[in-house]
């Protein structure tokens, strides 16, 4: 599918709005992760506003594509994208991490329709995607299973058990994405537990692997489209991500992995994002 410039502009604007919602949600919650959700805003925007076959008003639609978020801690971006797509009122984002909320600190399937599985304990998402992919195959459904993972959870044995399993059963209906932002709680991934050469690891496990700039919508959408036509193999997209993307003082600083902005910091972040919003509008209007 040819991508028109106005489609790209729409996605860029949407991602920017979602980043603003993430900041507003986090400052209200007073706890949670900042860098991961901001980094993955472009991929979530591409998925919810272009790639996924889904219906926000009918989240139980049996033929929908499934989006399993393995690294549940970046759920503010999922919640923001879901609210913006119409799954629930944007106002409800303010309840994140608060008592009696449907928006649990780590996403919970039975709490919020549209959250495909409970996650947040790392390393179990890819296996669950395998289970969902097997179920689709048994039921002759043509839907796709998307599984988003962090790079940190590539430390988990469970992830590699799933990687072997997906290749064994030739689960070509799975598109997995690794948020390759190079940071985890204790520091840089290559210092904590080196993952490289990550691409070759998955290739040797019989996966089809693509590497993209996770902030370039042309590359993101091309990669998701390519995955749909790969046969007999699951596809992994290694998305190179700038953690904290869009907020200058959060970018590439692992201190922002696990904390929310203060009110002042949020104000500064929103100012930057709004200025970027104007830039996007103007650039495309020329």
């Amino acid at each position: 599918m040819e991508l028109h410039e106005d489609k790209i502009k729409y996605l860029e604007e949407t991602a920017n709005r979602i980043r603003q919602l993430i900041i507003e949600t986090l400052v209200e919650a007073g706890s949670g992760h900042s860098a991961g959700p901001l980094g993955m805003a472009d991929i979530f925007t591409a998925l919810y506003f272009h790639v996924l076959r889904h219906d926000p008003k009918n989240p139980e639609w049996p033929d929908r594509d499934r989006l399993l978020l393995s690294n549940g801690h970046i759920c503010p971006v999922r919640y923001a994208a879901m609210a913006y797509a119409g799954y629930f009122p944007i106002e409800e984002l303010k309840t994140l991490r608060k008592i009696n909320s449907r928006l649990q600190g780590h996403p919970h399937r039975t709490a919020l329709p549209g959250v495909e599985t409970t996650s947040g304990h790392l390393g179990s998402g890819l296996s669950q995607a395998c289970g969902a992919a097997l179920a689709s195959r048994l039921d002759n459904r043509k839907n796709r299973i998307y599984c988003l993972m962090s790079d940190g959870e590539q430390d988990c044995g469970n992830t590699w058990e799933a990687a072997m399993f997906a290749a064994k059963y030739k689960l070509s209906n799975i598109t997995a994405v690794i948020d390759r932002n190079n940071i985890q709680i204790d520091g840089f991934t290559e210092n904590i537990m080196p993952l490289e050469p990550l691409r070759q690891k998955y290739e040797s496990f019989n996966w089809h692997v693509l590497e993209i700039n996770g902030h370039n919508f042309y590359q993101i959408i091309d990669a998701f489209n390519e995955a749909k036509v790969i046969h007999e193999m699951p596809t992994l997209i290694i998305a190179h991500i700038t953690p904290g993307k869009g907020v200058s003082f959060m970018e590439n600083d692992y201190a922002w992995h696990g904390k929310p902005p203060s009110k002042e910091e949020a104000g500064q972040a929103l100012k930057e994002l709004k200025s970027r919003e104007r830039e996007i509008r103007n650039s495309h209007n020329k």
Partner: protein
Amino acid sequence: MLNKELKLSDKIFQDDIEQKPTRDGYGQGLLIAGEENSNVVVLCADLTESTRSEGFAKKWPERFFEIGVAEQNLATVAAGLGISGKIPFISSYAVFSPGRNWEQIRTTIAYNDSNVKIAGAHAGISVGPDGATHQAIEDIATMRVIANMKVFIPCDSVEAKKATVAAAKIYGPVYLRFGREKTPVFTSEETAFIPGKAEILWESRKPQTVIIGCGSLLYNALLAAKDLENDGIGTIVLNSHTIKPLDEKKIVEIAKKCGAVVSVEEHQVIGGLGGAIAEVLAKNYPAPMEFIGMQNVFGESGQPDELIEKYGMGVKDIKAAVKKVIKRKK
């Protein structure tokens, strides 16, 4: 005397009573459940024959998934199937599943409310020569503590078949516990199995204590009850095949009637059936209680009957516990 209404085996106290491992009943139950519902699927972690998943795998190869020696993946792939409309049964030895993959079971199956049935084979010390590495004696505790988990422990292969079929019909996570060894088949096809309902197997005219058990050790409890009656000591033997939800009403009612309780299980005395009963009694009707089971130790290699004797779960141990608990009554 035996409860006639339950229609237990005609050969119950005869030497030629049929002997079969409870895992055989699991295999038969899978075939019935698979026939009744095409959404039933089976996953196994490199133990297809010994967990008796083989028959299902041969009959419905497209509904059987071999995971390899990867129990965390076993639980989590099943979790994904279970939230997608399937009814997965996962089979391994109880030490490995639900042992090694406990957290995955807790979060992706129980908390996630995924419709997965966990079958732990080779549970208890009667695994025998393989030794303590393969003897699961903690699994009742680790499963019953999880919210939204049901726990069934069948007493023989016929009950195991019924429990397996019943588990497939209940929505939500269930743990099923099976043994390796051949054990007496003392129930019959006609014996009732209702999840959550404990059944009186034996009742003397003037019971002085109730022996509440689960699994194949219930047969030892019955032998003990018969001997005790001959010695003039009356008991009730209660089959508490469902550990969770426990039949609290019946347990309290019978504890009141007898005034003392002995629990019998092939499991640590900490946190298992005995622990569950003690929780209920402490709240409703405190009564003297003795606990037959593993006394906070690991097992070892040996023949199953030798191990049961050595670790205090034989007929004589149950009789001694009954006499002791009666003395403790005020």
